[in-house]
């Protein structure tokens, strides 16, 4: 018999994906302004580093919060012992009010319905454990965050069936795409338990329209299934149209006392909006008491450190700070986004019009030697190894059209962003000439055809770390 479990020996963790391999290449040769100016610039990490100074100055003015003190008195013991999975009440209150503030106070949240988890990673996995059996499926619009393959499927045994979205309509979800996905699941004998969307979208950087949200509510009502709305980027919406939360739609449709109310769940985290991924602060918000009860117990496997809960409860309870942070953060994101977009334009590259997120969905289809994923991989490798930019290929996000890339803009200084755009322009200038002179054929390195219907495009780099194929 195998010494280890099936989960330990398979690769459903998804870390053979190019998304993670790009990170590894970056780590081997990371850009540093002084120490390694020709290194790889990290543009594959959706981090928000634009507003740390705001956090730092708050901390400077509020030493108690970090020093395990309340009103000058030590509360170390209380915090060190606090392991109640219901979470620190002051923190939950501050968190739900912050979530409400982000939504322009158009919706309010109830502290009894929120469950704290170790990051959104844990929140999403926990919801799968609560809502689906092994072998059942959730529908996800493509392109989607590569981490979902691990978070939703690995240890839960749940399947993902894609809702195909295309550039024909800006990758928006359509009724037809929803139906087709559902039918596809049926054909694969997979019971669909729900739909999971990320709103604002990763990797698109767009907010979902009211129309799409209403379509979703109609769909889940008709099929009697769940809807999970991962709103981790809700605080990064920097221009119009504004953010419309699923809760707002339900409220507008007077769904409060209907069955569908209990089947909508929100996932949140402070990793993107506040730029604190290291602190592992995630949350599940559900109107279903059983889900809240089960998820609360499951949170034992990944509680938020009480030290962190206390610090953030103080930070977020400072309403003036929170409001100022939200608006200043948006301003800076908008500015940075504009810089990336104009830098890309100078290189003759366009991107999907977006109003949120920490990245742009960039269209490099015209730079492909052929309209294939092999060509996308070839282009990607050139960009990583030659241009020295780690960006994420669309195939790693399960995009059905080759040639799209996710490029992050909020995790570096303005100078570094400028440099990255200069490198890109130089690259595009050089290959545009070559492309015009060459014919369309390129030798495909791997003679085996890769199937487009595979949900995860795996690159089999020989990685000694994983030790398995």
């Amino acid at each position, binding site marked *: 018999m195998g010494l280890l479990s099936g989960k330990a020996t398979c690769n459903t963790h998804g870390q053979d994906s190019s998304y993670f391999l790009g990170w590894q290449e970056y780590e081997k040769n990371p850009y540093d302004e002084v120490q390694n100016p020709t290194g790889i610039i990290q543009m594959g990490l959706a981090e928000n580093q634009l507003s740390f100074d705001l956090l730092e100055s708050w901390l400077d003015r509020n030493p108690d919060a970090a020093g395990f003190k309340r009103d000058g008195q030590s509360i170390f013991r209380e915090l060190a012992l606090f392991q109640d999975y219901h979470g620190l009440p002051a923190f939950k209150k501050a968190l739900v009010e912050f979530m409400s503030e982000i939504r322009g106070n158009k919706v309010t949240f109830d502290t009894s319905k929120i469950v704290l988890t170790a990051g959104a990673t844990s929140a999403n996995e926990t919801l799968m454990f609560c809502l689906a059996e092994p072998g059942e499926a959730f529908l996800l619009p493509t392109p989607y965050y590569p981490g979902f393959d691990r978070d939703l499927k690995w240890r839960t045994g749940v399947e993902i069936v894609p809702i195909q979205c295309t550039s024909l309509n800006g990758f928006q979800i359509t009724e037809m795409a929803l139906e087709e996905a559902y039918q596809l699941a049926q054909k694969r004998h997979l019971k669909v338990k729900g739909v999971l969307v990320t709103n604002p979208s990763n990797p698109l950087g767009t907010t979902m329209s009211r129309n799409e949200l209403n379509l979703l509510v109609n769909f889940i009502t008709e099929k009697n299934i769940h809807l999970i709305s991962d709103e981790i980027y809700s605080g990064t919406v920097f221009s119009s149209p504004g953010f419309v939360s699923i809760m707002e739609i339900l409220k507008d449709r007077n769904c409060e006392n209907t069955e569908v109310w209990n089947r909508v769940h929100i996932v949140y985290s402070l990793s993107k909006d506040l730029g604190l991924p290291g602190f*592992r602060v995630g949350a599940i918000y559900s109107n279903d008491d059983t889900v809240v009860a089960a998820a609360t117990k499951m949170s034992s496997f990944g509680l938020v450190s009480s030290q962190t809960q206390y610090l953030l409860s103080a930070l977020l309870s400072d309403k003036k700070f929170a409001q100022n942070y939200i608006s200043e953060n948006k301003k800076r994101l908008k500015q940075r986004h504009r810089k990336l977009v104009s830098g890309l334009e100078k290189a003759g590259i366009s991107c999907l019009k977006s109003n949120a997120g920490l990245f742009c969905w960039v269209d490099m289809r015209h730079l492909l030697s052929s309209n294939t994923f092999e060509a996308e991989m070839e282009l990607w490798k050139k960009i990583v190894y030659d241009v020295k930019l780690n960006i994420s290929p669309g195939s790693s996000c399960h995009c059905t059209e080759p040639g799209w890339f996710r490029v992050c803009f909020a995790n570096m200084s303005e100078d570094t962003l400028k440099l990255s755009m200069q490198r890109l322009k130089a690259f595009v200038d050089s290959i545009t000439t070559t492309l015009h002179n060459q014919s369309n054929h390129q030798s495909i390195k791997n003679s085996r055809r890769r199937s487009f219907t595979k949900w995860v495009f795996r690159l089999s780099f020989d990685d000694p770390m994983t030790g398995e194929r």
Partner: protein
Amino acid sequence: MAFALSNQVQLLSKIAAGNGHGEDSPYFDGWKAFESDPYHPTKNPNGVIQMGLAENLLCHELVEDWLMNNPKASICSAEGLNEFKGIAIFQDYHGLPEFRNAVAKFMGKVRGNRITFDPDRIVMSGGATGAHETVAFCLADPGDAFLVPTPYYPGFDRDLRWRTGVQLVPVVCDSSNDFKVTMEALEAAYEKAQESNIRIKGVLITNPSNPLGTFLDRETLKDIVSFINEKNIHLVCDEIYAATVFTKEPSFVSIAEIIDQDIACNRNLIHIVYSLSKDMGFPGFRVGIIYSYNDQVVSCARKMSSFGLVSSQTQHLIATMLSDDQFVEKFIAESAKRIAERHKAFTWGLSQVGIGCLKSNAGLFLWMDLHHLLKEQTYEAEMALWRVIINEVKLNVSPGSSFHCPNPGWFRVCFANMDDRTMEIALSRITSFMLKNVEAKVPNKKKLCWQRSLRLSMSSRRMDDFMASPCMSPQSPLVQART
């Protein structure tokens, strides 16, 4: 309404709708009783005293002093602020190198520096709770099983089984030989599982033991290692109470030491679970550790740790604190001393009223023998006695049945989660209760062979004397302690 409910229940997974979380167990009922009427010295002096929570509060002021003198440990203080950004964005599942180094060093110190730990084998988890679940996911498939000696920590039923689908098969250890783990019991449990077509993937031991407070001797550990090697199954050692060992002789032996000396052992089968929740008293900080000698498990567990990483803010604090060698050595020594004192005081206080405990030299609790107070030797009688203890004596203690103890009448009583005054009050409540009931329940003075490890004494010392004197010396001529 019924249709809607059942329809709704079908919408959720079996895991969510069922009770595999194990919280309907009496272990948690006592907590609930405490929560509805918690003792407080001034606000609620007649409330329930919590003795069902294995927490270590004895050395917190040492940590508080250290924190005051080391503001850099907090990334948010003026001194540490320049590190804030780097730490706040650090979500690498390898963990901060300084954190892993500090934890590895601490683990070595706790074991008297008899063994060193490799920081690259240290994997983070959401407390030991997260560690156990992750190890189960790595080592076993749904339906597979682990052998666990009884009595064992009730949380294992949830941690190892709930979301993983793994089973637990008890290895019956009972009071006839002080609950020692024997090869016969292991073999018997293994055979029984084979006969029922249950695939055993490993053995899980907690050493030092919860709830017994004892630790395994070197010979037993070596025998267990031979057993698992012979069957080619895993050994998971939960050493979460390693620093709560308060005796020097006999000395605690970690599985790491056994492996170090035994070249024949297949190291790919050996895994340690650890945490700072008990040794340092930091359950709120969720610092769990998986330490495996199997490279594949380290790699897999590390990927899974994404589901329960330690907050980088906390990693930084722990790294700074545990790198302070002087502080760590002082803490370990002082903590053991205080646990020993508390243990002694409590066992003595119980012995004064004829209550014996399993002889122990570790842990934050006592394994108390109240079987002589049972109306009959059944679990129903144990539950009845437990309800009396909660409702009349106003103490939350944990009934042995919740630990899967094969003999009714045993209770786990925690002593390190309260101050001296509260302990005295708890003892006085026990004393009053026993005095009221002493006629019906005086233990037989004749020493039965299974009582040889129990300290039973009928001191003639008056209750007032006991209550008045804060220091309870076991050297007192009035005490007739038997070991």
